[in-house]
Structure formats: structure tokens, C-alpha cells
């Protein structure tokens, strides 16, 4: 039983890592007030970019970096459409998802079936890794997993304990106030969305160069949409994003393992989404919304009223 739990946890963490990257990025973007439904497209573009670059250069890290750049670039298109042109954010995000899916499919067609040449070596800390239980649970993952985990407190700190964080959150809560305080609302939103795209790209990269590793068309399989759900589930908080990502990821990867226990994998899969709706409901009430709810200006384009 204990073995089962351990192995379950050990599987959940890599499964949740791409979700974690995506969610951290989307939390940032939504905190600035922009809904980015294009995460799926950015993730998969990241996946194909990472694979291609890693394949030709032999370096995984270059691949990941390139993926971040591509994801961010795609996000900039969404940013331009929704922030500057003030187009409907929902439609724009959907368009980007389709764009990303299509682009990745086209670019990736020559990588189908090719194995990746290099591998990301798991980061193991000698000594620690041999600890009885904790060793295998905490210390045998590849560096990208650790990077994601480290990002969580870093992002948390930036968000709640620095001026940057206050700026970001103010833009998402009350852009008029931020504007009056001299903050460039557009710039902040652009940066936040760009960061979100980068993270999505890295998440996708993880899938193609570490997790699988391979390039399969459509390999994100809806991970981007799960990120959207996760962002709400995490109530726009990086720490809760960590828990949520591993939870969702774990459920996804474990759905079949739990079957012998009589738990239907599909009903299990439904739970996170049902729970997310619950979160939406709870956080919509006035007082509660102020404590844990969505950024007040989410999805509202900002214009400075001029006489």
C-alpha cells in the first residue's frame, strides 16, 4: 500500500510538471487581467520547437530555451490582439490555440518517429538520493522538475513581497488605479502575457524532450485546457498551483492504476474539473471574491478615458 502511494507520487510529479509550468505562466498572465486561452497552442509549439532544436543541436537546454522563446512569441500575438487592439480575448485565445496546433503539426511532421539523440540526465544528489523513502521520492528527477518547483516560491515571493508583484496585481485588479499611479498598464500586461507564453512553451518542451520523449502530433492532448482549469483551481496563487498541478497530473497518469481498486478512471478524471467549477462558484460571492477570487479586471481591456 505504501509502495503504491510512493510510486503514485513519483509518477505524479513528472506528469504534473508541464501543467505546473503552464499554470505558473497563466496565473501571471491572468493576474495582470488578461485571459489567455491560447495556452494549448503555446505549449504544443513549445513542444515541437524544443524537440526540433534539441534534435539538431544536441542540447536539451537549448531546445527548452527556444521553446520558451517561441511560446512567448506566440503569446505576443495574443497580447497585441487583446491588449492593443482590444479584441475579444476569448476568441483571440482560441485563434491562437488553433494557430499553435496547426503550426506545430506542420513544423513537426518531419520529426514524427525520430528518436531524440540526447537525454536530460536526472539530477541526483549523491547521498540524499539514497535515503530510504525520501530519496526516491524527492531526489531522482530531472532538472526541469526541480526548476519548476523552485519557480513556485520564487514567483510567490515576487508576487506578494516585491514591488513588481504589487504592480502586477494592481494592474489586474484595478487598471485605472494603477494607471493613475503612473504604471504603464499595457507594458505590464504585455510582459505578463509574454511570461505566460514562455512558461507554456517550457511546459510543452518538457513533454517532448523529457517526458515522452518524442514528437507526436497533438501530444499536449488538452494539457493547455487543463492549465486554464488549474489556474482557477489554484485561485491564482503559485503555491496552490503546485499542489493542483501534481494533483491533476497525478490523476491523469494514475487513472488506470486505480482501476483495480474499483475507481473508474473517467469519473476520477472528472473530479478536478467539477471541483474547479465549485471553486468558481465559491469565489464569485462578494466577500469571498475579494479574498480569493479572480482578478477584478480579468478579461476587460483597458482604455484610458480621455476627454
Amino acid at each position, binding site marked *: 500500500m505504501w509502495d503504491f502511494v510512493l510510486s503514485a507520487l513519483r509518477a505524479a510529479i513528472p506528469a504534473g510538471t508541464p501543467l505546473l509550468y503552464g499554470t505558473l505562466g497563466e496565473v501571471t498572465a491572468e493576474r495582470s487581467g488578461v485571459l489567455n486561452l491560447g495556452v494549448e497552442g503555446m505549449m504544443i509549439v513549445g513542444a515541437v520547437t524544443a524537440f526540433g532544436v534539441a534534435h539538431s543541436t544536441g542540447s536539451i537546454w537549448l531546445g527548452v530555451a527556444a521553446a520558451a522563446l517561441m511560446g512567448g512569441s506566440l503569446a505576443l*500575438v495574443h497580447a497585441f490582439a487583446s491588449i492593443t487592439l482590444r*479584441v475579444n480575448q*476569448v476568441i*483571440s485565445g482560441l485563434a*491562437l490555440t488553433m494557430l499553435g496546433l496547426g503550426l506545430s503539426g506542420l513544423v513537426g511532421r518531419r520529426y514524427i518517429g525520430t528518436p531524440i539523440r540526447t537525454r536530460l540526465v536526472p539530477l541526483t544528489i549523491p547521498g540524499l538520493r539514497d535515503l530510504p523513502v525520501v530519496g526516491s521520492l524527492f531526489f531522482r528527477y530531472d532538472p526541469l522538475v526541480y526548476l519548476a518547483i523552485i519557480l513556485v516560491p520564487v514567483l510567490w515571493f515576487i508576487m506578494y513581497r516585491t514591488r513588481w508583484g504589487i504592480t502586477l496585481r494592481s494592474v489586474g485588479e484595478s487598471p485605472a488605479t494603477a494607471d493613475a499611479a503612473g504604471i504603464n498598464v499595457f507594458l505590464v500586461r504585455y510582459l505578463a502575457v509574454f511570461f505566460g507564453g514562455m512558461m507554456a512553451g517550457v511546459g510543452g518542451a518538457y513533454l517532448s524532450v523529457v517526458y515522452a520523449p518524442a514528437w507526436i502530433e497533438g501530444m499536449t492532448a488538452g494539457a493547455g485546457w487543463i492549465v486554464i482549469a488549474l489556474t*482557477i483551481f489554484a485561485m491564482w496563487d503559485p503555491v496552490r498551483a503546485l499542489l493542483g498541478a501534481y494533483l491533476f497530473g497525478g490523476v491523469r497518469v494514475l487513472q488506470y492504476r486505480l482501476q483495480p481498486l474499483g475507481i473508474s478512471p*473517467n469519473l476520477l*478524471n472528472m473530479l478536478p474539473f467539477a471541483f474547479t*467549477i465549485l471553486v468558481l462558484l465559491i469565489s464569485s460571492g462578494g466577500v469571498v471574491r475579494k479574498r480569493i477570487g479572480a482578478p477584478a479586471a480579468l478579461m476587460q481591456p483597458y482604455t484610458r478615458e480621455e476627454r
Partner: protein
Amino acid sequence: MNVPLHVRIQKRLAVPRWIELSTAIFSLLLALAVIAVLFRALGVNPIVAYRKIFRGAFGSLYGLSETTVKAIPLILAGVGLCVAFQARVYNIGAEGQLLIGAICATGLALAFPDLPAWLLLPGMFFVGFVGGALWASVPALLKARFHVDEVLSSLMMVYIASELVNYLVYGPWKGLSEMGFPYTDKFSPSAQLPRLFRTRIHYPTLILGLVLAALAYVLIHRTKWGFEIRVTGENPEAARYAGMNYLKTVLLVMLLSGGLAGLAGVGEVAGIHYRLRYPQGVSPGYGFTAVIVAWLAHLNPLAVIVTALLIGGLLVGGDAIQVALGLPVATIHLFNGVILLFVLGGELFTRYRIRLEWRRE
């Protein structure tokens, strides 16, 4: 930033029809041009690709029939979305409602295989409509009573619906005769929609779609309910003053939208596959594609018929170039995405006038 050259975006007051139309066409052409460039960059000959797509979609009788096949669920779902979007209720979860409609129809078909067709088929459409409508009522109530955003809640419902389908086809409804595939058994003949000659066009659904498109148009523009929908979408405050019931309006449009998406689902299982399959096998994203269809049609249900055929043609063309050029099916998503982006951008030109002016200082 003290740049002397300012770009001022002014709301355009009058939008003459010719500007709307020519902008739409221009956006489309621009989109195609950009895609051509992308193709070139990726080593694909755009002329060849475009020709194949066009030929595949519209160049043969087979192509036309397949285009129509793809257009059927797009028409139904698209019309539903027009109604919802007119009230500014953004039902992004049409895909989920479609699946639920498919589930309900399947349930009826599997439960009563021996009913005569004239009873069973309308019954399947009925339960499909009701199922889709009920599925959409959840985000509707959440929005009207609790101000929960319908985009997010309806999107979550898509996943739940998708998992429900999986649960059924891998579990209680798993076909006995289908060798472990995630399919239900094939429907009995009386649960199969008739097709047009040797094509796959399940014409009862098509007729239903066309009729409902017309009815939706009449609803929106000629009835009291339609008036309330349009007023609520444009100015909820004025709607309140005029005594219109917000809850009723939101519920109405979501029920209609969900029901229509459900009908699309019924059409797919009863007209194309004759069984319920894993979610992507029932709908490769028709519910989401319908958003483009509705948007391109400027939320006009009659225009949806045209845009559905257009997008349906693109989908078929995608299959064609996959076969002929080895391009992945996902290429179509590229088309959809770029076209949508350019149409969105084009809308900007119709809504606003962009002025460049020099400012002192």
C-alpha cells in the same frame, strides 16, 4: 513616452455595409497570403496546397458531399452560438453539450433498438436536444444567479462531458462486438439516420439545421424574445429598466444553444458513426470550430449556413492535403487560427477609424 506622432483610435460612427463586406474579404485574402508565406517557409508549395484543398473540398461531388457532412454539425452548433453570443453569453462549451446530446441519443438507441425508426429517430433528437440544453443550463444558472463567468464554467463542463463519454464507451456501454475498441455496439437500423444516395450526408439532420437556422433568424429579429436577447446583450441596464428578466434571457439562450449543439451530437452518432465512440471520434472539435463559424457569420444564423460550408470545406481540404501532400491534419487548425485572427483584426477596421496625427510637445 513623448512621441510626437500619435495613433488615435476613434470609434467609427457609421459602418456602411460595403466596408464590412470588403473588410471581411480583405481579411480573408490577407490570411490566405500569410498562410502561403508560412507554407513556403516550411517547404510546402502554397499554390499546390491551395489547389488541393479547393479541389478536395469543392472540386468533386465526393468533396462537396463531405463538405456538407462536416457543415451539418457546424450549422447546428453555429446557429446556437449565434443566439447565445447575441446576448453576450459566451458559450464556449458547445463541444460538451454536443457530446451530451450524443450520449443521450445513444442511450435511447441502445435501450430501445426495436422501436420503429419514425419513433426512435425523432425521440433521439428530442433527448439529444434536452440533454444538451440541460448541460448548458449549469453555466447559465451559475452566470445568472452567481455571476460566474460562463466561458470558464462551460469550458470545464466540456471536460466532464468528455470523460463521461469515455466512461461509457469503456465501461457500461462498451460494445460486445467491437473487440475492445472504445465503441458502443452499432445502432440498430431504426436508429440510423438515412443518407443521401451514396454520400454520407444524413439529410434529416441537414434539413433540421437549415430549418433551425431560419427559425433562429426569425427568433432573433422578429420576436419579443429576440428583442430581449438583443437588448440584454447590448445594454443590460436598459434591459433591466425595460423590465426584462435577465435570468430568463440567459437561461433561454443557453438552453437553445446547448440544445442545438446537442442536436449536432445526435447527428454525428446517428448519422455518421452509428455508434458512440471516444470523444474525438464523435467530434474533432466541432463545438469549438462552431465559434469561428458563428463569429465569421457576424452572429447571423442565415450567414452561418455559408460560413459553415466554408469552414467545412476547409476541414475536408485538410483531409485532402493530408493524403496528397503528407501534411498533417492539424494544418487546418492553422487556417482556422490565422483566418480568425485576421477577421478579428479586420473587425477593428470596421469598428474604429485609425487616425495618425501629429501632436505638439
